[in-house]
């Protein structure tokens, strides 16, 4: 009935202002008259006995910073993905229009001869699908066998570079020749490689190979380097005064969360970092209660602990430097999600894990 619903609603909303016995009487009443509603209002204004004075306990508000370096390269492909992409490339041979050779290469030029030579060797203008022709009798045979090298991206890159470097005559040469490739240095100087083709020494420029996806820092395990784990997101964790690893955090003093985050970044990692705090809304929080021993000894026993609100930030350039840090930090590391789990306390990890990206 209407009266009961009203009383329940009033009881629910005003339950913090009325004492328990009054609250019970309200909920137990079944009167559905206007008089009942009036009595409820009266009981709401009833002054309940003041309990013994409990001190106002509070939590300090901290701002934390989750400073992340996003992945620098795309992730490795799953074998199924690479097989699928190879299949799609071979299928494209049969579905797309044929390559308009004479638009790019003039007839009867050396480039034209080179093109024809290479086409005879690989049957197709494409270099990354192996020996496959989209037309003719063998066009149905477009599936690669298990373990075929055509799937791997490294193999495709190798074929492209080989196509750029060689003229196709090497394949034709019956005499066995040793191809010496001098890999190009960092300064991109075009070095020269020599081949013996049919007695004549042919010089051709060699292209430098792409840099490896697993860097030096990966091999050495240098956790302070930002050049590590290029496929993953790296987060900055610091070691504070008590020796615990955590994201940099500090108490807020008369400022908003994102300004506090910017200040904390500078005070912990130094100014040599080009960072960006994303938005003004925190991405997670963590509550820490001081242990009772600490509470007894502390000058302000009403402060039961602190609540940290984490702000998301990105680093674009630079490196952290703890030399002049004002938060008493002793060490820093750039770690992936799994590595953080191993370094950090369990209850801290539980609050923090859902803020971190999968990759």
């Amino acid at each position, binding site marked *: 009935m209407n009266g009961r619903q009203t009383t329940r609603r009033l009881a629910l909303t005003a339950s913090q202002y009325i004492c328990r016995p009054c609250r019970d009487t309200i909920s137990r009443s079944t009167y559905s008259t206007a008089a009942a509603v009036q009595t409820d209002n009266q009981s709401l204004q009833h002054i309940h006995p003041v309990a013994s004075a409990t001190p106002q306990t509070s939590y300090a508000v901290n701002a934390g910073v989750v400073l992340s370096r996003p992945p620098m390269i795309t992730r490795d492909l799953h074998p199924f993905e690479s097989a699928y992409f190879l299949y799609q*490339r071979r299928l494209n041979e049969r579905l797309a229009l044929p390559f308009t050779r004479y638009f790019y290469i003039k007839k009867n030029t050396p480039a034209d001869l080179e093109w024809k030579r290479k086409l005879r060797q690989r049957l197709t*203008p494409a270099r990354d699908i192996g020996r496959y022709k989209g037309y003719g009798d063998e066009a149905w045979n477009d599936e690669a066998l298990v373990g075929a090298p055509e799937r791997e991206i490294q193999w495709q890159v190798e074929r*492209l570079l080989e196509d750029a470097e060689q003229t196709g005559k090497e394949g034709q040469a019956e005499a066995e020749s040793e191809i010496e490739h001098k890999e190009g240095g960092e300064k991109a100087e075009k070095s020269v490689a020599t081949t013996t083709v049919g007695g004549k020494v042919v010089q051709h420029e060699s292209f430098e190979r792409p840099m490896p996806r697993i860097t030096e820092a990966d091999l050495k395990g240098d956790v302070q380097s930002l050049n590590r784990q290029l496929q993953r997101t790296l987060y900055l964790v610091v070691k504070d005064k008590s020796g615990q690893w955590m994201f940099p955090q500090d108490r807020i003093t008369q400022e908003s969360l994102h300004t506090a985050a910017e200040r904390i970044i500078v005070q912990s990692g130094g100014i040599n970092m080009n960072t960006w705090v994303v938005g003004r809304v925190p991405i997670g929080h963590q509550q820490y209660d001081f242990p009772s021993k600490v509470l007894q000894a502390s000058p302000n026993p009403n402060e039961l602990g602190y609540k940290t609100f984490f702000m998301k930030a990105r680093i674009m350039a630079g490196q952290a430097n703890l030399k002049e840090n004002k938060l008493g930090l002793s060490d820093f590391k750039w770690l992936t999600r799994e590595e953080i789990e191993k370094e950090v306390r369990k209850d801290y990890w539980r609050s923090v894990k859902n803020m971190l990206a999968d990759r």
Partner: protein
Amino acid sequence: MSSPIPSPGALRLLRRAIAPQISLPTHQVRHATLLRRPKRPYTFTQLVTLSDGSTFLHRTTSPAPVYKSTKDQRNTPLWNPSSQKLLNVEEDEAGKLAAFRAKFGRGWDAVSTDETSTEQPIDHLLDLISGQQSKAAGPKSTGKKAQAADAKSSEPALAKGVAGKK
């Protein structure tokens, strides 16, 4: 004799007869229908190398297997605001700037942010009057290769492998 211009009613009928019959689909079609195969140009995979050494594969109509770019996002100051090297780039390909400095001294140089000039302005004036060469400050113009090497060392991520791009 019939008038050369027919009546409006007749005109309407004629127009309807000539205009194409666009009838809205009223029934569902569940059998296979002929779809025109789109005419797509032949595409190759290409390895692109940017100016800082990072590489990626992409699909393109260009038959070149490898493409090396000399000017792109990685060596532009707009997209690398933290790089002081790119900000202070002074390209002097033809050597004209060096020749100018040899003739007229460095008094006409733009004010640089790094060097705090303690010289008084009158020095430059004296330079111009007397035609003397002012003492050579540290050469600001660096070659492109050195720039690339320096730019690489300043940014955190140097080594970029081939990105699987498919």
